């Protein structure tokens, strides 16, 4: 009985985490888009982007929050989709974990990249 109970309560917590991360993502995506529209008014090159983001701690913090929200949000949704689409595969959790780690590692690498300008 305990096992079943804990499973449901864990899923309720995951749902809550997904909801909160969705709120963060909504805000982040909006800010991200506004910045893009603002920044590319006269065309934009990679050099110019790095020129602005390099050494800018606020940019780095903002995008790391963005990455963390994706890290929480996307794998939970992926598990749900996989469970409902391929209920007997048993691959839902492994794939979600791989996705989570990829988002975290690649996302953080990108944040470090725009902060340092690719020169570590």
């Amino acid at each position, binding site marked *: 009985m305990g096992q079943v*109970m804990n*499973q*449901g*309560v*864990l*899923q*309720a*917590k995951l*749902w*809550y985490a997904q*909801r909160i991360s969705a709120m963060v993502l909504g805000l982040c995506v909006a800010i991200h888009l506004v910045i893009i529209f603002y920044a590319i008014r006269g065309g934009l090159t990679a050099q110019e982007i790095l020129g602005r983001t390099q050494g800018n701690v606020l940019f780095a913090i903002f995008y790391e929050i963005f990455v963390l929200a994706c890290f929480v949000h996307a794998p939970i949704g992926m598990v*749900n989709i996989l*469970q*409902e*689409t391929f*209920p007997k595969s048993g691959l839902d959790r492994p794939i979600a974990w791989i996705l989570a780690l990829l988002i975290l590692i690649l996302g953080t690498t990108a944040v470090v990249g725009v902060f340092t300008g690719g020169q570590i």
Partner: protein
Amino acid sequence: MSNSDLKVKVWRGSQEGEFVEYLVPRNPNQTVLDVVTYIQRKLDPTLSYRFACRVGMCGSCAMTVNGVARWTCRTHVSKIVEGDSLEIAPLNNLPVIKDLATDMREFFNKWKGAVGFFKGDKTRHDDFTKVQPNSEERQLADAGIECIGCGVCYASCEVVQSRPNYLGPAALNRAWTLTNDVRDVQQLERMTAVAGDAGCHACHSQGSCTEACPKSIAPTASIAGLKKLVARAAVRGSKWGKL
């Protein structure tokens, strides 16, 4: 007369079977249940189907009519007929016993699974509990209380289809009305029972149940209420304690 006859395809068999066509004379104000009854009484007495009250109270006569789950006793043929054709099948998402009768056991067992039954702690020697009709709990319970247990929402739900252990809209709607019953003493058990992917958190909020409900109840709203309440109880706690 034959010109105005309805061409009615009816599912015959159990899980395996086929549609058989019958010709049924049209009548003004004819309901789908009238059509099925005509077939059983005049054309083929071996047809099995289920009904009781004929006036939309008992919830026994739900079937899939032209692809949509409906209460047949209150569905007029004229409102849903396509040309002169009707296709009548048993409800989806439930095992078929024979013809139009489904095995509803799983549906009702899930009500039990969702702790969809009342339990109080008062005896006949105690005074009545006073519940204000305009209190928030009473209003929320009222919104979902008229369910007749027909199974139309359950048959219309695509989450039930993809997750066979999902409790389904009717059971969760009942759980929500009881969550708002101030006399009930099983709140923590109920919240635990309806938490997670077998319960309220699997709902896609697509609203098929709400669209199909013949009593105009919105199980989607009830489930949304449960999602918030239960998740909050799991993370922060509730007035009845933490999960």
